[in-house]
């Protein structure tokens, strides 16, 4: 119990520190003040009826993307939405859906235009899932939007909520090193993601997602940017022991993972 409380205490302190970092980096966007991180509604409050069905369908696509939206997922890709958006898209600092929903539409430099959420979701399929963009009118996008909409119920709109997105780490003290990163990977990551980044399976199904190789995200994905991957790793990895790597270790291992082979950026493929 004491340990649990200590852990919780440490978590809160870190969260407070990081929230100040957040403020410093977030530029013109207003950040929600206050100590509480938004709590999405519990599953038990998903209503009966057609809207609830759509929300539940969205959750299924979210957690078993290959099974319920397979035609938009790359042929060899083994990721799901939940691979990056932990706890079914609810966990703070792992790009939770409730943090994203209230921030769209918004301008993104990635494609130099104001994006709606459906366009953002298309990007996930194209890059992280190494597949094809589902049409905005497709059932897949409709269900995922409904799931995000329901999860952000009660959250203020148009502000960057605490715990939204990923943590932005301060620049590393030393330039990220693949050599050090490889050591961190072997000690802390390979248990689940495998020595060759292949992830792990159970009875034929993927359990731990591949972090490089043909089954992983492609070079157009957000995680192919070392700072984003480092921020994700820092707060979330290893699972259940987030914030146990130092900032430098997070930078190093992110650089190592992103230095490994993975599918090409589809925007840079030569069309013939």
């Amino acid at each position: 119990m004491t340990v649990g409380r200590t852990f919780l205490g440490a978590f809160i302190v870190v969260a407070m520190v990081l929230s100040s970092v957040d403020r410093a980096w977030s530029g013109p966007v207003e950040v929600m003040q206050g100590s509480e991180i938004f709590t999405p509604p519990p599953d038990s409050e998903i209503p009966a009826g057609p809207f609830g069905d759509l929300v539940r369908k969205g959750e299924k696509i979210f957690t078993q993307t290959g099974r319920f939206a397979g035609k938009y997922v790359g042929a060899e890709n083994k990721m799901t939405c939940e691979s990056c958006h932990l706890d079914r898209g609810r966990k703070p600092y792992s790009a939770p859906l409730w943090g994203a929903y209230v921030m769209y539409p918004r301008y993104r430099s990635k494609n130099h235009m104001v994006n709606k959420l459906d366009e953002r979701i298309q990007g996930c399929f194209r890059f992280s899932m190494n597949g094809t963009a589902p049409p905005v009118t497709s059932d897949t996008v409709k269900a995922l939007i409904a799931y995000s909409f329901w999860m952000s119920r009660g959250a203020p709109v148009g502000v960057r909520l605490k715990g939204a997105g990923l943590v932005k780490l301060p620049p590393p003290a030393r330039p990220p090193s693949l050599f050090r990163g490889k050591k961190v990977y072997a000690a802390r990551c390979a248990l689940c993601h495998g020595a060759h980044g292949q992830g792990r399976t159970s009875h034929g199904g993927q359990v731990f997602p591949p972090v490089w190789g043909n089954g992983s995200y492609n070079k157009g994905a957000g995680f192919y940017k070392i700072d984003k991957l480092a921020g994700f790793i820092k707060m979330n990895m290893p699972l259940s022991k987030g914030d146990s790597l130092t900032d430098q270790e997070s930078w190093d291992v992110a650089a190592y993972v992103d230095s490994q082979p993975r599918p090409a950026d589809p925007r840079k493929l030569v069309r013939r």
Partner: protein
Amino acid sequence: MDGMSDDFIKGLIPEVIFPYSTPSRFGRIIGEIKNSDTHPGHRRLTGFRCPVRRRTMLKKVLSGIALSVLIAGGAAPPAGAVTLMAWGKHIAKEGNGTPGSTACMECHRLKGGGMPSIGAPRIAGQPRRYIAREIREVQAGKRYGPVMSGVVQNLSRRDIQAVALYYSRVHSPKIRDVGEPDPSHVSKGRRIATRGLWKKNIPACVQCHGPDGYGVPPLFPYIAGQNRTYLLRQLMAYAFLKRQDDPQGLMRGIARRLTPEERKAVAEYFSSLHPPDRDAP
């Protein structure tokens, strides 16, 4: 097998040389089969190929052995793993022959179904590397095991490999727990198992132990169909006692953050499931 390099595995599993172990034991086995009477059970497994001139002596040796042993020895072990597999089965059945050695089947049963009434775990079909690793960790004192620590202390490294291979390949039906699980515990346990308790930074159990708790080889054991006394005892050992063999302390942290009711709920949930059929290697 799974792409994990040997070096990496060695890093996870520090080789432990226990003062009482007899590392060369397995190297002598073949000789013992031919030349000594110390391993009559093992002799049975290859007995049909014994030269005729040794038959008489063989019969004398076997006269004291139960009929069941004679019958069990009749089946030819699968090709390719004859010696290690046979030795593993021998240890499971009769111990390794050192003074005070205990047969695994006394508690885990010959087919590895375990013994729910005393909390002896089901081990049939558990990954080979996992079984070997856990025995080593008990020997090293890193895994709390008041019973097992005495039982495994005379096992050599080769014995461990043999017994791990044997139990990873046997099949056993589920041995029923004592009494029925509490349905309210089961449903609460199911939520924790499949959804986690992320407010306390506890992922869903199945995120590491595989869908339905079927395990993720080589180092995440299956927990589906395991008996609830064992599961609860391990969660307690992780939380409060000296079970410290979990990689990176992952289970220690999670077990500590669960409340007593939550520990009981997940134990009852996974014990209510069916164990996996034998996993791929």
